[in-house]
């Protein structure tokens, strides 16, 4: 027996069996305990509850929602809310981060200092504290009667109001998609090599697609316009409250601002790192070839820096999407808050946690997949640039 244990292969098999056994024991034991505990609380396990109506409401939804809707629909709403907040937050963070990163890599010390203060300040304070701060700031704004006018925005303790379009929801979505395509397609046309004509000769096509897309988006908006109303619907005071316009709730405003500012500080550092990773030799070569500073930036440094920062950026994006779960701290109904309330209300603990895990896994994997695709598409071929 002892000599058997000295055999490496047998030892390896035993070790792995032991490992698998412990894992299985923990999982099965935990599962059985939970089943037992929950059934003693009269919770029927299984996913049948998804078809029951919830009996509670959400405070924010892009999709129609009412307490009579079933749980599965609420989970969909939660995912859509998380993605909506996440994508807007990422866009804002990327914009701020790009700017801060450029500040920090600038040749001007004062600009560098500004960037550095920004990053050091916002990165070293917990995100949830910043969410609370912005939330308190918005809810401590004056009441609608004394609301602050800020250009087209109206700031009050009921949220931020902005002029809205008197257009049906589906038409707005359609116009937004058309607009995105009108901007993205020309970019693709400028660079792709899949078409027969060389990219330089597609000027007319590019401008045509851009113009046509913009016109189409405008047409969709006009078509969806509510009959007999002005196209633009500005917010206005009526009694003690605001009427018309688009209200962005204090919860959403606080989360969006906090995620954008905090994420911007991190992304700024990633951008800086990306530019730092571009070898000095590349810049010197570009200058010695007679490229102007702008040309050497846009044709040499930026493309190389983008390649260096993409993998880290993907991780940061996943992190920021996960940060939307802070919605629960101020009461924004993101995916996690829906799950938490579900557990509270229905007791379907294990099922709801499983849905949460699957949902975040799906979101993370999608982001990773998108970035892998981009990465592969723009990766430098061969290894001539390793040094």
């Amino acid at each position: 027996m002892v000599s058997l244990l000295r055999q490496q292969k047998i030892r390896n098999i035993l070790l792995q069996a032991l490992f698998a056994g412990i894992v299985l024991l923990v999982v099965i034991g935990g599962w059985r305990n939970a089943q037992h505990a929950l059934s003693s609380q009269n919770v029927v396990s299984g996913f049948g509850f998804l078809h029951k109506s919830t009996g509670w409401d959400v405070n924010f939804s892009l999709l129609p929602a009412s307490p009579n809707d079933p749980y599965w629909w609420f989970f969909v709403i939660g995912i859509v809310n998380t993605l909506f907040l996440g994508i807007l937050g990422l866009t804002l963070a990327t914009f701020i981060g790009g700017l801060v990163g450029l500040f920090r890599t600038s040749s001007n010390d004062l600009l560098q200092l500004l960037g550095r203060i920004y990053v050091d300040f916002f990165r070293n304070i917990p995100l949830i504290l910043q969410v609370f701060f912005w939330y308190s700031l918005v809810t401590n704004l004056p009441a609608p009667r004394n609301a602050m006018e800020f250009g087209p925005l109206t700031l009050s303790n009921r949220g931020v109001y902005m002029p809205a379009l008197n257009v049906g929801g589906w038409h707005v979505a359609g116009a937004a998609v058309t607009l995105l395509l009108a901007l993205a397609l020309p970019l693709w046309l400028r660079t792709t090599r899949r078409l027969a004509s060389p990219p330089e000769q597609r000027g007319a096509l590019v401008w045509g697609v851009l113009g046509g897309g913009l016109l189409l988006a405008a047409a969709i908006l006009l078509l969806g316009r509510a009959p007999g109303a002005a196209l633009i619907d500005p917010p206005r005071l009526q009694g003690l409250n605001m009427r018309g316009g688009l209200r962005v709730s204090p919860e959403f405003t606080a989360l969006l601002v906090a995620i954008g500012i905090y994420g911007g500080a991190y992304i700024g550092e990633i951008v800086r790192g990306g530019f730092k990773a571009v070898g000095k030799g590349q810049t010197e070569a570009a200058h010695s070839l007679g490229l102007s500073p702008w040309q050497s930036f846009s044709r040499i440094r930026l493309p190389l820096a983008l390649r260096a920062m993409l993998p880290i950026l993907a991780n940061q994006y996943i992190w920021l999407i996960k940060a939307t779960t802070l919605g629960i701290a101020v009461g924004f109904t993101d995916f996690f808050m829906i799950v938490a309330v579900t557990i509270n209300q229905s007791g379907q603990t294990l099922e709801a946690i499983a849905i949460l895990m699957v949902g975040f896994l799906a979101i993370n994997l999608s982001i990773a997949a998108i970035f892998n695709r981009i990465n592969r598409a723009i990766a430098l071929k061969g290894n001539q640039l390793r040094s």
Partner: protein
Amino acid sequence: MNTLANSAAVAPPGRVRMLRKRYFPTPLQGVVSVVSAGLLLLISWKLLDWAFLSAVFGAEGSAAECRAAGGACWSVIANRWRIIFFGLYPHAEQWRSALACVAVVAMIVLSCVPSFWRPWRLAAVWIIGTAVYYILMKGGILGLRYVGEEQWGGLALTLFIFVATCLIGFPLSIVLALLRRSELPVISRGTGLLIDAVRSLPLLAILFAFAVVVPFMLPGWMQTGKLYRVVFGAGLFFAAYQAEIIRGGLQGVPRGQEEAAMALGIGYWHRVGKILLPQAMRNALPATINQFVIGFKETSLVIVVGFFEILASGNAAYGTGEWTFAYREVYAFIALIYFVFTYSLSRYGAYLERRMAISSR
């Protein structure tokens, strides 16, 4: 001597030219410099004015006085600092809470001193520091009055959560990293799956699961207080991230190091403990310190599962009575506390990174 006098003589025009070259090389750059300088001055002035010049200090300042002054109302801190630092800890015993915080800070500072970077010394510092904290806070022995965990709060609780997270997470991260690089496929894949699953979830979801779901899954004899479960969840999350950092450090150790140790007949545990981990930890040091910084900031999330840590006690400090308008001051104060911890840690990390860049050729 001569050259020195020379350079001094030409210094003024040289300096002016240098300044001009630095900030006004082109008209556009000049505008950028002026705008940035203006912005910097404006921010500094506004901050100075708000925080000091127009501010009301001292415990006597009343809410009405504050509103009139227009600046920061530090009176709220002067009146409510005890709740921010110690939460609901019994008033007469708060000196214990303060001493416990000092013990933890001393422990963290000691572990930043390179001469303590031996496994046994670090372990000793952390175990002693945590024990001192625990005895002081909980009491029940040495003539100290018993104070249950549900009464812990404020900065003291935040520090406890951080320390306990590290104490659980750091050793666990080493174990996970070693398991993940095991040659046995079941072990390495299984560990990899666990690490990736934990990393793909938001920390809040994990804290929530450990607070609410795990009690259902544990057998009766393993039921513990909610605080310990949540801290374990935070430790697991920390470990999953830190394990990947250590794995990266291990990958940076050349394969030949382990082979040389094997050829000398050195066994697995000594290979890992004396050859691989010391080098891997050195490679991973900057990222590790960054992870500690993140870990410290993330302690604030436990507010969501109902703990009275520094942020929650801050909310309570301004949330009641006459101080409801003073949220800015309270948040600024708490932000300052976080900033002091995280900024000094990350500066320390940057210093280590520079030092290592010089010493490794």
